[in-house]
């Protein structure tokens, strides 16, 4: 029983084809129209619209998208490791960076929360 029923129901290759198809479309649009927005973000908007307009079905892309989101944190570890190369470069500026990051985070938290609390249901 290697081939379970579940295996036939979830088609990973097809799901990946959709994901990479929309990613490619995003990159193409970015290239053709020369807009300063990353191709993968355009791809994200396109796949949302395609689902919304029922051009594609959720179950066709879900097998791949669920797995990609589950392991999202794994994928950015190499970039984090890359800090070892740039650490000396930003070290002299640690204080302004810390101040900017903390103050800005608190502002973002408060502005979002207060608007949501006042006007949300």
């Amino acid at each position, binding site marked *: 029983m290697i081939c379970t029923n579940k295996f036939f129901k979830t088609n990973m290759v097809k799901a990946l084809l959709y994901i990479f198809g*929309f*990613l490619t479309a995003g990159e193409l649009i970015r290239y053709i129209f020369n807009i*300063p*927005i*990353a*191709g*993968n*973000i355009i791809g*994200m*908007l396109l*796949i*949302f619209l395609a*689902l919304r307009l029922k051009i594609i079905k*959720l179950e066709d892309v879900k097998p*791949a*998208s*669920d797995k*990609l*989101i589950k*392991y*999202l*944190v*794994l*994928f*950015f*570890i*190499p*970039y*984090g*490791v*890359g*800090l*070892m*190369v*740039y650490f000396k*470069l*930003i070290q002299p*500026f640690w204080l*302004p*960076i810390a101040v*900017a*990051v*903390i*103050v*800005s*985070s*608190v*502002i*973002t*938290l*408060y*502005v*979002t*929360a*207060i*608007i*949501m*609390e006042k006007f*949300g*249901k």
Partner: protein
Amino acid sequence: MKEIFQLPVFGVFITLLAFVVAVKIKKKWNYILFNPVLLAINFIIIFLLVFNVNFEDYNNGGKFLSFFLGPAVVALGVFFFEKYAEVKQNLKPFLIAVTAGGLSGILSVVLILVLFKVPDFIVQSLAAKSVTAPIAIQISKLVGGVPEITASIVIAVGIFGNAFGPWILRLLGIKNKIAIGASLGTAAHAIGTARAFEVGKLPGVYSGLAMCINGIITAILAPYILDLFLLF
């Protein structure tokens, strides 16, 4: 031995190993600084320093994993579609709240850094600091920042939001759980969202969606805001 470290399989193997060990540690001792990504990154950096391996050699394999950030961002669009029905009744205030929060975040971080006169590449690397790492890395590349610096700061911001976000909000008088969720996702992306899910399932959903929306908003606005501030 250097030849072995230069093989792509080394980078992939050590990253997977560090991640699995880090997840195990987090499960055993649930402590905020034991964030799996933070732990894994530190394990790898220590290993590379001890065995004198270049980052470039490690990244021969590492880049096979970071490649999947592209499709992972597209997958966020699917997540958004799946969940947005749950916030439909609040859609307008939610969009306004996240947009205002995201915008004030970019403006304040850029303004403070410019006032401190830090070099441009740091301002460019930090403009997208509140956004989920895969999107932030793309924005950073596009605006002339250093993606590696961006990724590290983004993780730090996430851990800050996760650890102190709810406490700061309580101090500022916020009680509404949905508001707490939305603001955690806007300010501290996926790591903040993990905390929002501890507050409740609905706050968690709001947080995840806020993360997606702020990613889009920052991707659109950050290049223009940076142009404006770095002109002088």
